[in-house]
């Protein structure tokens, strides 16, 4: 396997960014595997083979979810936007637009560092509600 999860020279990337890129690559692979199993199951007539593949696909669901949770924990803004979209009833696109707007405006209002910033992340220190 090569190092094609990196878009920039790995030696120039901080360790946490390399870890982030590995998990993004893993997330992609899990999503691909879920799609492949879905196709295989759709064309397979042997019920025993289908049962095995459903079991295998369940593993990929779990891996995908763990990768995603890891990435969201490391990226508060992504997490906040995702929280406004995932497991919600209603229009997905509408939820997405609203979640993005609220999360970005909220982060700026709290004085949180910009995405990709290397600041100390101190920002506003006013207590909530004061």
């Amino acid at each position, binding site marked *: 396997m090569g190092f094609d999860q990196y878009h920039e020279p790995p030696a120039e990337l901080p360790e946490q960014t390399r870890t982030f890129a590995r998990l993004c690559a893993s997330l992609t692979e899990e999503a691909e595997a879920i799609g492949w199993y879905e196709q295989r199951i759709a064309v397979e007539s042997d019920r025993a083979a289908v049962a095995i593949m459903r079991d295998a696909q369940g593993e990929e669901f779990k891996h995908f979810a763990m990768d995603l949770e890891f990435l969201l924990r490391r990226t508060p803004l992504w997490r906040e936007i995702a929280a406004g979209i995932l497991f919600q009833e209603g229009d997905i696109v509408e939820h997405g637009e609203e979640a993005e707007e609220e999360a970005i405006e909220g982060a700026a209002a709290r004085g949180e560092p910009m995405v990709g*910033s290397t600041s*100390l992340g101190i920002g506003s*220190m006013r207590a909530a509600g004061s």
Partner: protein
Amino acid sequence: MSHLLREHAPITEASWGLIDNEARERLTPALAARKLIDFAGPHGWKRSATNLGRTTPLVDTPVDALQAVQRRVLAMVELRAPFSIARSELRDGDRGADDVDLAALDAAAHRIATAENRAVFHGWPAAGITGIAQASSQEAIGLGQDCTLYPGHVAKAVEALLHAGIEGPYGLALGPEPYTRVLETEHGGYPLLEHLRKIIGGPLVWAPGVEGAVVVSQRGGDFLFDSGEDLSIGYDRHDVDAVAFYIVESFTFRVATPEAAVALSP
């Protein structure tokens, strides 16, 4: 790579973690202004000015029979506090030493936090910043040395704000000397610090850089700190013995409501 050039520093990621954490720990208690005023941003290093919405008339125009104005902005000020750390100390930190000498970083953090407070509360004419105490349209109240009188002074300031239609809660920035005096004093068997907190109904903060004290409205929208690059640590240079860094930030500050604060002069 950002303008901070952190990737060029000949130090490990663990050392960066050590330096960033130490800086946060030292800055947080001293950044009094941020605990009391509105903070917008950070907008990034490329942000150069804050829009004031104001204009200056231009009398001369390139062609006759025209009217012209020029927009006024408040230019961002860049504050930088340099410091150096011995490479031997950072290597010991990588080995697991838990007493790495970061005194120069601590001093730089205190300097820049003090400067930020001073610019906000007392102004910085060269940077075009008018401080809260200067801008206040309220008559200043003498604070004095006798801190048993402080509750009366602070109550008088609160009364002046109420008269001006500025509702509470209020915050109190206390300079280091009066803060220490307040900490050491009881008022009617009750810590003076708590007594003052009850009068203002909001935060009371230790404010290095503040002379005397300032009572400020906490309703929001009165005192506006606009952050470009928030406090960050950059790499400057190194030699065989030491690595030179700096703490940097860019910001503007302006007072929107001059009557929303009362200065308690020392």
